[in-house]
């Protein structure tokens, strides 16, 4: 399995890569000092503002996340908007 992955140049998901990914995520939050509660509150406010202007398809599907960048971290909100033709 691992051998085949290596042969095909695929990146294996080992426990160390999982550790690294988890750390990167947790540190982005630690560094920005946003608690999960803050995140949730912010998400709700973003939804409230956006829905004044567009029709949000599925509020449950909205993804607001902090991502690690090279120079700075990024707050990314992915908001599905309802597609209507009229």
């Amino acid at each position: 399995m691992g051998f085949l992955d290596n042969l095909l140049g695929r990146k294996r998901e080992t426990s160390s890569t999982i550790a690294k990914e988890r750390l990167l995520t947790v540190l982005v939050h630690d560094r920005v000092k946003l608690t999960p509660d803050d995140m949730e509150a912010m998400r709700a406010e973003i939804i409230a503002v956006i829905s004044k202007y567009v029709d949000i398809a599925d509020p449950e599907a909205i993804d607001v996340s902090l991502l690690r960048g090279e120079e700075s971290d990024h707050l990314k909100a992915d908001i599905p908007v309802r597609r209507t033709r009229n």
Partner: protein
Amino acid sequence: MARVITITSGKGGVGKTTTTANLGTALAMQGQRVVAVDADIGLRNLDVVMGLENRIVYDLVDVVEGRCRLRQALIKDKRFPELFLLPAAQTRDKDAVSPEDMIELCNSLRREFDFVLVDSPAGIEGGFRNAIAGADEVLIVTTPEVSAVRDADRIVGLVEAFEKGHPRLILNRIRPQMVNRGEMMSKEDVVEILAIDLIGVVPDDEVIVTSTNRGEVAVMQKGSQAGRAYTDIARRLLGEDVPMLVLTDDQSLLDKFMGALGLRPRRTVR
């Protein structure tokens, strides 16, 4: 000019005391005048790791509270003419000293020594703040584990907030075989995550346990990879350009074969 260097970590049990004892001894072996200060008030440990526990009369709190002179509290390591220990108090707690006391203490020690190494307690509270108060430089010890690295990141932020310059990293207890299998984060992973300079990588080494059992330190043991790693860190502190050790913890098949033939195993120590 004396240098005050604090060894700290955030998370407990990652190797601060082991590091302080080994670096102190390694620097003394290089001819430097060194004092190792145990700033873990209430949890005295550096004395037993250095094998000096039987000779304590006064401690750091006695000095701060004026019950003795600084010279009287310093314990000389008879094995190394240039190595001293200032032990922590065992029966008091961290509130017995303030950051101002520590600054004053470090400044007095500066006059007598080339290096003042301060062994910090774990955590980010008073004890840690005392330990870094007098520091010119900070070394952060971590192991390649999620919780230790997360705490180290917190400490990096605090050290910078206290304007102690850019801390450098010691990655302790690396197990090369696990790293090779992808079961342990590598030094590259940890350095990328923490984004600070690495001053050394210390392998997980049984010699740390056996030498500590005897009240000796790994740098005194020939053939200990951890000892070698600490000696290299000491040399880097002195400004030497020492390449990072390439660690091979268990022997490869070839090594075993060569060993069986009485040939020197290929211990990659470059």
